[in-house]
Each structure stands twice: as C-alpha cells, then as structure tokens.
C-alpha cells in the first residue's frame, strides 16, 4: 500500500465518522457540532497522553471517549431543548471556546500545537481505523433501524407531535448528543495519530463546513451516502488533472449544487437505499435459483 493510499483511506474514514456523528443529531433537526470540539479534545488528549504519559493507544481511546462524554454531558441537558438554529450557534461557540482555551494553554503547545506524536505502523493503524468505522457504522445502522430510529423520524417530522406520542424528545436529544460526541472523540484520536501532530487551527470553521457538506451531499436521512461522499469530496483536489487543480473549489461546489438541485435530500436517500437493497435481494434470489 502506498503512503498516499494510506492517507486517503485514513482521512476518508475520519470524515465518515465525523459526518455520521453530525448526521445522527441532524435526524432530529439539530445541527449539533459537538463532535468537532470532542474531536479537538480527543486529539489533544491523545497527543498529550502519548507524549507525556506514554499511554498505549487503546487506553488513549478509552480516555478520549471518557473526556468527550464528560465535556458533552452538562451542556447536553440545555442543548436538548434548543431549536435547530440555536444549537448550531451554541455548539459553534463552544468549539471556538475550546480552540481559544487550547491556544492559550502552553502545556498543550499553545497556538503552535504538539508534534512528534509516536508513530504507529500504518497497516495496524489502518486496521484500527476501519475497525472503528465498522463498529460505529454497525451501531449507527442498528440505531437507525431500532425504535430509537423510528422516534428520530417522528421528531424529524414534527417535534411537538412526537412529544404527544410519548417520545421524550429531550432525552433522545441528550442520548444522540453523547453518542455523537463519543464518535468525535474517537475521530480525534485517529486524526492525531494519522497526522502526527495536533494544533488548534485544525478544528476551525473550514472543518465544520466540510463535515456539514459531506452530510448534505451524501444524504441527510440515511447513513450510506456519507460513505461515498467522504472520499469523493475529499478526493476532488487530489485526483483532478494537474491543469485543473486550481479549479477544485469550483468542481467541489458544482458537485454540491448539482446534488442539491437534482436530489435535495442528498446523493443517496432512503428510496435509493430501498431500491439498492431490493435489487441486491433480487440478484441474490436469482443467483440462488440459478444454482438450484
């Protein structure tokens, strides 16, 4: 495997995780940006623990998850009641607060950041990353297809109607926020060990717009589009011919606008998923019949 293939696979996976984290709360009409500051916390925790305490990465993951949960728990009680616009502002403010604190904290490298993060062999790290993608993907899938997923659909349709049907919307929101934050924390650790460095500017406005774009482009109501959107959008600048490299922003935005005009719910919506699933079942049935 070449270095480029490794980095492409790694960053695609990290963006998939982040986009899933944002997608979960987006399902109940809350654009919760907690995964981003959890990613920042997870990354810094991972870097600091590896550099100063010599922790192995499995312990760092546990620590990052704990830190993300702790940091997200108290605000989640208040955020649960916020509307779509208010939660964006509140979580964006928290993100910038975390950035500012880190910038002014010399023990965490301040504005410079932390470097010389211990290197983990690439094959192992890729396995760990995609292991998390599979586990978290499975959890998101099970969530989507459980009573919680149906509750999320009801809240998405109408929050008040969902409440009258007995759905505890606040509790649902808190649970999803915490799960999203956990995913963010894990993504942070994966990020820092992939890149080998961490610095506050990496978790700013560009990252949050990028992750939101992946969710919107991939599909806002199903988890599958994100798996395709992440490598496609991240790869736009990497695979364009040399002469068109300067136009990558235009290509990126044309793709986004095109999807929004043609399929406003995203590249892959539930209808597409059903069609693909039925098609696969059909194929499998024909294959089985043929071999009988």
């Amino acid at each position: 495997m070449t270095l480029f293939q490794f980095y492409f696979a790694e960053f695609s996976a990290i963006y998939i995780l982040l986009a899933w984290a944002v997608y979960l709360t987006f399902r109940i009409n809350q654009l919760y940006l907690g995964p981003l500051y959890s990613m920042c916390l997870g990354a810094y925790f991972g870097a600091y623990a590896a550099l100063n305490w010599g922790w192995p990465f499995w312990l760092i993951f546990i620590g990052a998850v704990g830190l993300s949960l702790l940091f997200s728990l108290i605000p989640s009680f208040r955020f649960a009641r916020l509307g779509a616009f208010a939660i964006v502002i509140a979580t964006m403010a928290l993100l910038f607060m975390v950035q500012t604190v880190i910038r002014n904290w010399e023990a965490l490298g301040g504005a410079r950041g932390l470097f010389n993060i211990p290197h983990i062999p690439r094959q192992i790290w890729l396995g760990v990353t995609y292991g998390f993608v599979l586990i978290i993907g499975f959890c998101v899938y099970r969530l989507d297809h459980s009573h919680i997923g149906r509750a999320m659909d009801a809240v998405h349709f109408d929050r008040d109607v969902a409440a009258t049907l007995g759905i505890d919307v606040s509790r649902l929101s808190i649970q999803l926020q915490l799960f999203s934050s956990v995913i963010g924390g894990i993504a942070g650790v994966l990020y820092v060990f992939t890149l080998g460095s961490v610095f506050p500017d990496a978790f700013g406005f560009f990252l949050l717009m990028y992750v939101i774009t992946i969710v919107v482009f991939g599909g806002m109501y199903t988890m599958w589009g994100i798996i395709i959107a992440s490598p496609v959008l991240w790869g736009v600048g990497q695979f364009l011919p040399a002469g068109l490299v300067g136009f990558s922003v235009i290509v990126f935005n044309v793709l986004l606008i095109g999807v929004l005009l043609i399929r406003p719910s995203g590249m892959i919506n539930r209808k597409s998923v059903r069609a693909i699933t039925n098609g696969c079942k059909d194929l499998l049935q024909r294959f089985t019949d043929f071999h009988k």
Partner: protein
Amino acid sequence: MRGRMYKTIYCALGVLIILTLPINGLAQPKPVVKEWRIPTLIFLSGPFAGHGVAIKWVIEEVAAEINASGGIAGKPIVNDFMDSAMDPTKAAACMSRAIDGGALCVIGPPTELECKGSLPLAKQEGIFAFSAMGTETTTPEFAPWTIYVGRGTADRVKATIPMWVGVEPDIKMVAGFVFTVFDAWIREWQGHEKTAAGLGIKSGGKIDVSPGMVDYGPLVVKALNTGANAFILITTEEINAKLVKELVNRGSAPSHIWIQSGGMGTSFMSQTKGINEGIYSNESLTYEYTSRWAKLNSSYAKSHGGLPLVGTAYAFADMMYMIKAAIEHEAITGDPAKLKEERKRISDYAFNQKGFKGVKFTYDVVNGVARGVPVPLFQIRENKGALVSERVP
C-alpha cells in the same frame, strides 16, 4: 637499452594514469535522471489562491531561467504542482504522493497550517521540504527537514517601532487593529506592544477586527477614544483600506499609521489612493531590493496587467536556487538506489548555509532559519513604497 625500455614503459604508464584520472573516482558522479522532478506543494484553491498562483508563477519563471542557462547539472528542472489547499490533511496527502513518487526533496508547503499537517510525514520519511515561509515557530520540531527564510516576527517587532518612532517622534500612544483569526498576527501585535512599552510608548490596547463587518467606524472610534495617536494595522488588505479611510476621515495623520506586510497589497493601494500618502509599512510593492527582484517583478507586472508580485514570492524563488545549489554542490545523481542518502545530503546542505544570495536578500541559514534578513521601514510616497530605514537583526 633495457633501462631506456623501462623508462618508456613507466612514462607511458604515467601518461595513461593521468589520462584516466577522471575515471579513477576523482570526477563528479553524473546525474542518472533525465530531469529533476520536484513536487511543489502550493495552495492553488481557496480564499488565498491568488497568492498561491503568484507563487506558482515565480517558481515557473525561475525554472525557465535555470533551464535556459543549462539546467541543474545539465538536466532541466520540472515542478510537479500539487494543491495543498491550505488544508493540513490535503497537504499531508500531497506530501505522501511526493514521497511515493521518489522525490529528492519538495518545495512547500507555504503556510503554517499546511506545514504542521505535512512536515511530520516529511520528517518521518526523511525528505527535505523547502517550505520557505511556513515554519517560523516550528522549524525545530521538524529539524533538519525544513527551512524558514522569512523575516522572523521577533526580529520584525524588535525593529519596527524603534525605526518608526525614530522618524515620527511625536508618537505617544499606539493602538492595534488585529485580525484575530491568525495567531501569528496576535503574537505580532503583542510583540509590538512590548517593544513600544520598552520605549515608553503607551498602549491603547488591541482592537479585535472581524471580517465582513459593514462599518468599521465604531472600531476606529473605540481606538481613538483610548487616546492613541498612532495605529498599527495587522489585518487584511480590504479591512486595512476601510480602517485607513475611517482613521484619516477622523483626523489621524497617515504617517501615524503602520501596516503589516500581510495587509499591504495592490488592493489596499488602489482603495486608499489619495489618502495613503505617508503611511508606513514593512513591505513595498515597488521597491527594487535587487535587480533580480526588479526583473521578476516587472516581468510579472507585464503579464498581469501591472500588478506587482506578492511580497513573499521571493522566498520561493530562493528555494528554487537553493535546490539548484544543493544538487550541484552535493553532486546528487537522482539514482533511486541512493535516494535516502541523497535526500539526507540535500538536507545537510540546505539546513545550514553561509551567505546565500537570495533574490531579495543575502543571508545565512542557521539550523534551518534565515539569519540576517533586514527589517525595512517603508513609507508610501506618491503611491509607491520608499525605503526610509532598515535594520539587520
């Protein structure tokens, strides 16, 4: 007779040895490559793509000049441009592609964010990144695999206020307008404030500037209310232009305004034409540092409707000349079997140099950082930057 025979044989042997000396290992090894392909990581997309494109132009011009005069060790240089997009993850991906391609060294990436993302990989794989301007505070972290040739912020802040106050002695209190998105700019203001305090000049404090404001008047009023009679502007060109208009309209003398180099450009000059006479800066778009720089600048202006080159572009011209010097001095062959060793030799050469004659300045490189780059003070006179004073740290 026998003696004469032996004498003849010995003479013939001697001549043979002399003739074959070049083959006896005392000659320089020749390059095995047909051309020197140098991956060049530049931001060619995003909000500052204009700067990246200008840097690309300079690199291409210098490459053409080098190739026209025989190339590097007789082989042409070719730059493989990659878009790092001011994104640390994309910069890391570009660096990985460069390493996969068996590059001897890379040029760039140019910004701090991109360097922080990609240089850990460069250090790990042992490839020298001629990043030029992106590692002011982080060169030691990536040593000895990178280089910084800009004017250090520390050098700039130590020299600027003393020179400015030297020509404008009635400056009593200075306030700063700072675009707080970039930490380096916040640090720069803090440095100026400290230097001013050392000279007995009071501080009116930092006024945080955000982009996209409709009206900068309230910020200017806030600054004037501090009692400051001099202002340091560390923001973008567009914001600087608006601030200058507000300051001058409210009675501030242009000579009591200093603009940081990042906010001094053609857009600022054209928007403040008529009111910018007397403003100070540490950058001039028109000053002829050297004939080489003047030639590059005028060539760019001819092909870009009169626009001057961005101030930092010189550093990338220097990187190209440095690569030429490194390859020729170290007799690099480009042999894939010696890749690791030759990458190290390039690093050893570039990381410490004496008296490098750059396009704008001549300087030493000590542990990857340029020393002796002068800090100038320019004043805008008739819409051009004139050199008023200069200090070499």
